[in-house]
């Protein structure tokens, strides 16, 4: 981790050092691609420097003479450096190779110079030579042409709601670059634009045609004037070697006439009361999607189909006011489906009483633009059998069969309940699930805190344990002080040596027998001494108390 940190710091410092020490560089060049004899030569000076450096614009000089350089742009480059680009111009030179001397400029008051470089001045190409340099394609044999046409695709009579297409056709020959265009039809002021513009290209005799059409909808009656449409452009030929365009003169222009679109109002004469803007030629039919035999307040689905040719966006649900006295209508809007030339409305009806015997005829009016007339359609009445909902009554006592026929009670319940799976626990206690809330995420910091606390606690306990551990030195002193009592003396001496070996990492624990001690080195010497002590202890030898033994033990202990 530490190595990585130092590595990153070193890289960063090195980068800073390099950036700080980056020299200011000046380079200059002449645009040899466009350098022709008898023409002024264009060149650039590029200065690489730090963003805060001051470039003296008036200090540019060439061969000791002031050079008029114009600032072009500044570009950010890597390492916090910027590249300032200046442009200058030189007087015409003869064709051939020339030397661009060093250009000098002052940056932060200090003068810097570019390295001299060579450049070539090309001979001025003649028109014939230029022609030969053009692309390998043969020179065009046709003269560029441009023509604009504006059209409107619309029914014979346009009424509010009618759909129209505003079309522009661009006829052209050769390559043309448009420079001006005024196309008011595409703005379709006064009309509602439907969808995006459609563009298609095709060939018409010698012309390439590009057609742009926009679908629109008439909104209000009135006359809509569209000013002249106008386009202007330049025919050109492209030099594919030099990637340059050569424009022909004069510019090509084309203009259309003004266009007027008249949206007619629906005639007031003979207009049906229930006309709601439908335009076209339609047929209508109504049918029941559910059985005609039903109970009061049960759902009936009525389908109203309107089929034909016309503007289906203008076809709206026929007026259902007639039904409102007999049926309760759903609060939800009716479903609408469109398939081919047919629009279907599905209406939910709930009979209010058992007296309802039919769905009465529905009427729908539309305007036929071909015939310039209104038409009203009516559906056939649909017979219904509606039964009252009756409460179940107790079964009457049994009567003779003849009478029973007359007094038979039909047990009628409301419409059969739709079978769905019920919640088994409904009504029982539904407790929230334990630990199923977002608050449980608090367990993460709490857990981390607990782990940290436990680790701290364990560390403290271990430290305390170390502090309370008696050293071998202390045990040895204890043994010496117990010399009057042989039993305690031997035990303390043994513990002092074993603890000493543990402290020296010779043995892992002091809880081992003397026989298990290694036989080599200091441990071997201690083993011999301790075995000797044992032998003396159990042999009741008084020699233990002799000063020589104590001295031997002490020497070995110090050596250890």
């Amino acid at each position, binding site marked *: 981790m530490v190595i990585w940190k130092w590595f990153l710091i070193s890289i960063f410092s090195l980068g800073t050092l390099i950036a700080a020490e980056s020299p200011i560089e000046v380079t200059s060049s002449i645009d040899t691609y466009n350098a022709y004899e008898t023409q002024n030569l264009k060149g650039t000076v590029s200065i690489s420097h730090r963003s805060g450096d001051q470039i003296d614009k008036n200090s540019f000089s060439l061969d000791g003479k002031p050079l008029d350089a114009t600032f072009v742009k500044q570009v950010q480059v890597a390492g916090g450096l910027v590249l300032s680009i200046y442009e200058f111009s030189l007087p015409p030179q003869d064709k051939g190779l020339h030397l661009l001397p060093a250009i000098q400029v002052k940056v932060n008051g200090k003068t810097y110079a570019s390295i001299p470089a060579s450049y070539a001045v090309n001979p001025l190409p003649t028109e014939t030579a230029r022609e030969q340099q053009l692309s390998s394609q043969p020179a065009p044999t046709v003269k560029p042409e441009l023509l604009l046409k504006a059209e409107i695709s619309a029914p014979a009579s346009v009424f509010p709601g009618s759909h129209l297409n505003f079309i522009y056709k661009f006829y052209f020959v050769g390559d043309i670059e448009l420079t001006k265009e005024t196309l008011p039809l595409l703005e379709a002021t006064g009309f509602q634009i439907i969808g995006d513009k459609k563009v298609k290209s095709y060939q018409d005799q010698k012309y390439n045609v590009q057609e742009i059409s926009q679908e629109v909808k008439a909104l209000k009656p009135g006359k809509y004037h569209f000013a002249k449409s106008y386009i202007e452009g330049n025919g050109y030929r492209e030099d594919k070697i030099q990637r340059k365009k050569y424009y022909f003169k004069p510019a090509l222009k084309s203009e259309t006439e003004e266009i007027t679109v008249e949206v007619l109002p629906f005639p007031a004469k003979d207009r049906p009361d229930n006309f709601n803007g439908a335009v076209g030629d339609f047929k209508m039919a109504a049918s029941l999607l559910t059985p005609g035999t039903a109970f009061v307040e049960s759902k009936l689905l009525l389908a109203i189909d309107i089929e034909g040719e016309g503007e289906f966006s203008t076809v709206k649900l026929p007026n259902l006011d007639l039904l409102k006295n007999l049926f309760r209508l759903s609060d939800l809007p009716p479903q*609408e489906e469109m398939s081919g030339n047919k629009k279907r409305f599905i209406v939910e009806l709930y009979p209010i009483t058992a007296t309802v015997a039919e769905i009465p005829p529905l009427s729908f009016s539309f305007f036929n633009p071909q015939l310039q007339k209104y038409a009203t359609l009516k559906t056939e009445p649909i017979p219904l059998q509606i039964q009252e909902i009756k409460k179940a009554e107790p079964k009457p006592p049994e009567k003779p069969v003849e009478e029973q026929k007359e007094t038979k009670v039909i047990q009628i319940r*409301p*419409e059969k309940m*739709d079978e*769905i*799976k019920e919640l088994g626990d*409904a009504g029982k*206690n539904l407790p929230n699930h334990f630990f199923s*809330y977002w608050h449980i995420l608090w367990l993460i910091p709490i857990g981390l805190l607990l782990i940290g606390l436990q680790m701290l606690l364990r560390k403290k306990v271990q430290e305390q344990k170390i502090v309370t551990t008696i050293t071998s030195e202390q045990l040895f002193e204890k043994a010496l002080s117990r010399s009057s009592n042989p039993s305690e003396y031997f035990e303390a001496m043994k513990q002092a040596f074993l603890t000493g070996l543990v402290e020296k990492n010779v043995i892992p624990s002091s809880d081992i027998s003397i026989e298990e001690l290694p036989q080599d080195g200091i441990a071997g010497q201690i083993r011999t001494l301790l075995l000797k002590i044992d032998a003396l202890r159990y042999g009741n030898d008084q020699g233990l108390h002799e000063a020589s033994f104590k001295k031997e033990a002490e020497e070995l202990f110090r050596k250890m």
Partner: protein
Amino acid sequence: MHRYCLILLLLAFPLFGDQLLDKAAENYQSGLHGDTLAEREAGFNQTLSLLMQLKEQNAIDEGALNFWIGNTFFHLKQYPEALYYYYQAKELKPRDQNLEYNIEKTLRELGLERQRESILQKSFFSVPEKLQLFSLFLILGLILISLWIWTRLSWTMSSSIFFFLLSLFLFINVMYVFYFSPIKGVVTHSTLLYREAQKTEDVVSQVPILTGQMVRVIDVVDEGKWLKVLLEDGTVGFLPASSLRLI
């Protein structure tokens, strides 16, 4: 004195919740077994009112509660609302087959087909269940790591790492669901799909979006008045926010 009042209030609260539950169950039964349409509607409407109160209290299992509300709306023949609550319940009870059956049934009533869910869209555990599992694994991991701290038994360390990894996986999963899972909505009022967030704009199709249809909400525009939605067939358009209920 105030302390005693507070204790009494706390003791009374669960009782109040239980009473609501009992009352709702009673009304629901009267709705199911009502002899007339009016009796039924009264029963179910009373049930709805009580269940909505319970929902506000947030005191009982929300998955079960939404299921119940969905059933009540179904019996009232308000299928789009029923679907909305069924879908909410589905988020909390993803493996409930009865719920699945009711959703299918409601969609059939609306003349719609169930949109096929891909394996990636299906979830075996709900978010609350995942949180429960997460807390279980985390607690086990904490117990085992505590054992390791004090005993240094190697198996306790490896077991705790195993449980921590399980809880980490669940945590990432829950966070992903919370922040990145698509917002869905149920169309509760049939409407046309518009090209832009204005009713004066063109419609994408003359065919309206039917009630009960589920859509994915991509964006909220015009201060929440319009929603940019993605239909199952990939069509994108705008719907008035009032025609949709977000799940």
